[in-house]
Structures are given as C-alpha cells and as structure tokens.
C-alpha cells in the first residue's frame, strides 16, 4: 500500500464507518427514550396503586369497629367473658 502510485478507493469503508457510528448513536438515543417512556408508565401505575391503597384501609376500619362492638355488647368497652355474662 505504501508504494502505490494512485490513491486507493476506500470510500466503501468510510461509508460503512459513518453508517455504523450513526446507527449506534441513534440506537442509544432510542434506548434512552424507550427506557424513559417505560419508567414513566411504571411510575404512573405505581402512583395509581398508591392512591387506591388508602380506601382499602378505610374499608377495614368499620369491620374492626363492628368486631369491637360485638366483643363488648354491655357497653363497658371490655371484652365479654363468662363473668360478665353471669352479671
């Protein structure tokens, strides 16, 4: 190559090089975009789950109140035992 008289035609390699460089960069930019979009979807979903979680806890409260009233029908607030029933 170093004793040649004319410049070799290596334009094919140059085109391949620039094509690869642009493709790799474009793929990376696309990967950032896709990952960002997926994370935003995950975030929205998780926030929805978090928002819907409190009503589930609220629904549990009346049940516990009900149980408490069952356990103390005498209005004393104390649990019903054999002794309290005899009274």
């Amino acid at each position, binding site marked *: 190559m170093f004793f040649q008289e004319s410049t070799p035609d*290596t334009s094919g*390699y140059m085109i391949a*090089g*620039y094509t690869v*460089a642009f493709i790799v960069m474009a793929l990376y930019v696309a990967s950032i975009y896709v990952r960002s979009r997926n*994370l935003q979807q995950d*975030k929205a979903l*998780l*926030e929805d789950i978090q928002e819907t979680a409190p009503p589930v806890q609220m629904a549990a409260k009346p049940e516990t109140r009900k149980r408490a009233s069952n356990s103390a029908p005498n209005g004393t607030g104390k649990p019903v035992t054999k002794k309290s029933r005899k009274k």
Partner: protein
Amino acid sequence: MQPKPFALRIFDIAAILVLGIATYLALTAPTERVMGEVQKVFYFHVGTAWTALLGFILGGVFSVIYLITKNLKWDKFQVAAIEVSLVFFLITIVLGSIWARPAWNTWWTWDPRLTTAAITELIYIAYFMLRQGIDDPDRRARFGAVYALVGALSAPITFFAIRLFRTIHPVVIGGTNPEADGGFSMTSDMLTAFFFALFAFSIIFIDLFWNRIRLGDLQEKVEQLKLKISM
C-alpha cells in the same frame, strides 16, 4: 418526569447541529493520499475515543465523591458518565476496525492499543452486569463505585499504551516521535475537521450525559415507589 429544562433542550438541538457540522467537515476534508477516503473515519474515531476515555475517568472521579459523601446522586452521575462513554468507545473500536481493514489489511490485531481498548470496553460491560446483580441500592452503589474506580485506571493505560509500547497504532495527540510508523501530518482543513469533531463529541457527550442523569432520577423514583407499596 419533570419537563426538560430549557438548557437541556438547547443542548439537544446543539448536539444535533454540531454532529451535522462535524460530519460535513469530516466528509469535505481533503482526502489522505495513501489511505484514501477511509481516513475520514479518523475524525469520529478520535472524537469518540477522547470523550469516552475522559468519561471513564469522570466516572472514577464520581466514584471517589460517592465513597466520601455516600450520596446516591454521585452514583447516578457515575452510571451516566460510564454508560455514555461505553457507547462512544464502542463506536471508537468499530471505526478503528473498519479503518484497519484497508490500512493494515486486517480487521483486528492484538496490538497493545487495540488490546487495552478491548479490555476497557469489557471491563465496563462487566460493570453493568455487576450492577444488575445487586438489588440493594446502597450496596450496588458502593460496589459500583469501587469497581468504577479500579476500572478508571484502564483509561489512562489505553491512552498511554501507544506511547509506552511498540505498536502500529499512530500517535495523534502529543506524539513525540515524528518518524514513528503510522504517524501522519494534517493540513489546516483536516485540523479544523479534527478539532471540531472533538468539540462536537464533547457537546454530544454532555447532552447524553444530562439526559441519562434524568433517566437515573426517574429510575430512583420508581424504585422508591415500589418500596413504599411493598411495605
């Protein structure tokens, strides 16, 4: 995700513009007499290599700051710098291989520069594999920081490999021996394209780095939400 800051939008546009200008300058630069058109990949080859190696060192610096402060923000910065550098360095290696085929008559040779470059790339691929295997964020950040700090040593070794060992790879920046095999001089147009490519890839690096940090912020928020819900 918070809307993009105005400065980042400017960087996005600037990155596309400088990439276009760098490509134009590289393609219209004078053709090298011995190697022909393929020599024009040199502008992107060196531009990406320069920013990638600096990015790996930057990752090492962020590792040190994380290990001192234990602030996860520096872990995000470290991951962003290394990920963008990894992509740039992949471009460097592929372009080098494409250039080597007509210049050295081979796609790959185990020359000191090529070998150290391949090892550096593999070290940082392993870095991401290591991080994938650890769930605890603090533990992952600590392991990642120590690994990145040790890995950062490979960047100067790669840079100085052609200055320390006998190699067929030309020394472009700071070459001391003008008669070294593979050395070449550049015309003013070539120098313009070369320095503009360095500038362009620095801008692109900053833009991608910033975007990657924002992605890291979002990942952190999602992880926190998952933890809250699972508790």
